[in-house]
């Protein structure tokens, strides 16, 4: 079969597995929100903290729910950051032509996930008692 026929048969075929990069957007929006809250002054930072960190002692149930939503989002964003970092470093190594043996490839792919898991756990253990009182 010629290339053109294969392409005509399934024009929607994916060309490479590359869907992970969507994660950049929520991470970067969080970064920009945080930066602009710092730049905006004490009041805007208090708003940021009220929603994302903690609404304080007198928080309503709804505010607590929003806090937990952002905490879980923060957890997901932290893990995806470290996963992207570890996976990216792994691919930089693959780019120099190393680590293509099936066993080595599988080992490092798993190692990247495990490293991301422990890095996330480290940040959570550091952040939760210090800033969230959890």
């Amino acid at each position, binding site marked *: 079969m010629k290339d053109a026929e294969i392409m005509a048969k399934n024009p929607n075929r994916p060309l490479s597995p590359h869907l992970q990069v969507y994660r950049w957007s929520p991470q970067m929006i969080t970064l*920009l929100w945080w930066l602009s809250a710092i730049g905006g002054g004490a009041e805007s930072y208090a708003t940021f903290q009220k929603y994302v960190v903690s609404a304080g002692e007198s928080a309503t149930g709804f505010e607590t729910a929003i806090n937990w939503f952002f905490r879980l989002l923060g957890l997901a964003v932290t893990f995806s950051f470290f996963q992207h970092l570890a996976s990216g470093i792994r691919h930089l190594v693959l780019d120099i032509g190393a680590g293509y043996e099936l066993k080595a490839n599988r080992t490092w792919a798993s190692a990247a996930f495990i490293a991301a898991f422990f890095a996330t756990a480290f940040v959570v253990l550091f952040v939760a008692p210090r800033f969230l009182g959890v």
Partner: protein
Amino acid sequence: MDSRTYIGRVRGLGSAKHGGEHWLKQRLTAIGNILLTTWLVVSLLLMPNFDQATLAQWLAQPTVAVPMILMIVIIFSHVRLGLQVLIEDYVHDEGLKFGAMALLNFYVVASAVFGIFVVAKLAFTGASA
């Protein structure tokens, strides 16, 4: 009509001279991101507290504002390069592809400019606010 295969048609013509550019840029921005995000994570872990005043004074220092602006530029370049490949690979309708690519470019440029403005404002006008 040319009945040769695609590869037959281009073989021997030499390279188009910019085939590796996108690939290389993505790797270079990745290396920059490793350095700069490591700097950010370590800085945040070493922060004494997360009060607005502390953070604003921290960000206003030249030694923090400069790497932060560099990080914003390199991150959004990397975002653009990565999502561009995603769109090229998965959006096959020409109109949708054009629209998605336009939105992506607006998004990364607007975001990067916004981030740079925030850091520059703190760095140039001081952290009194």
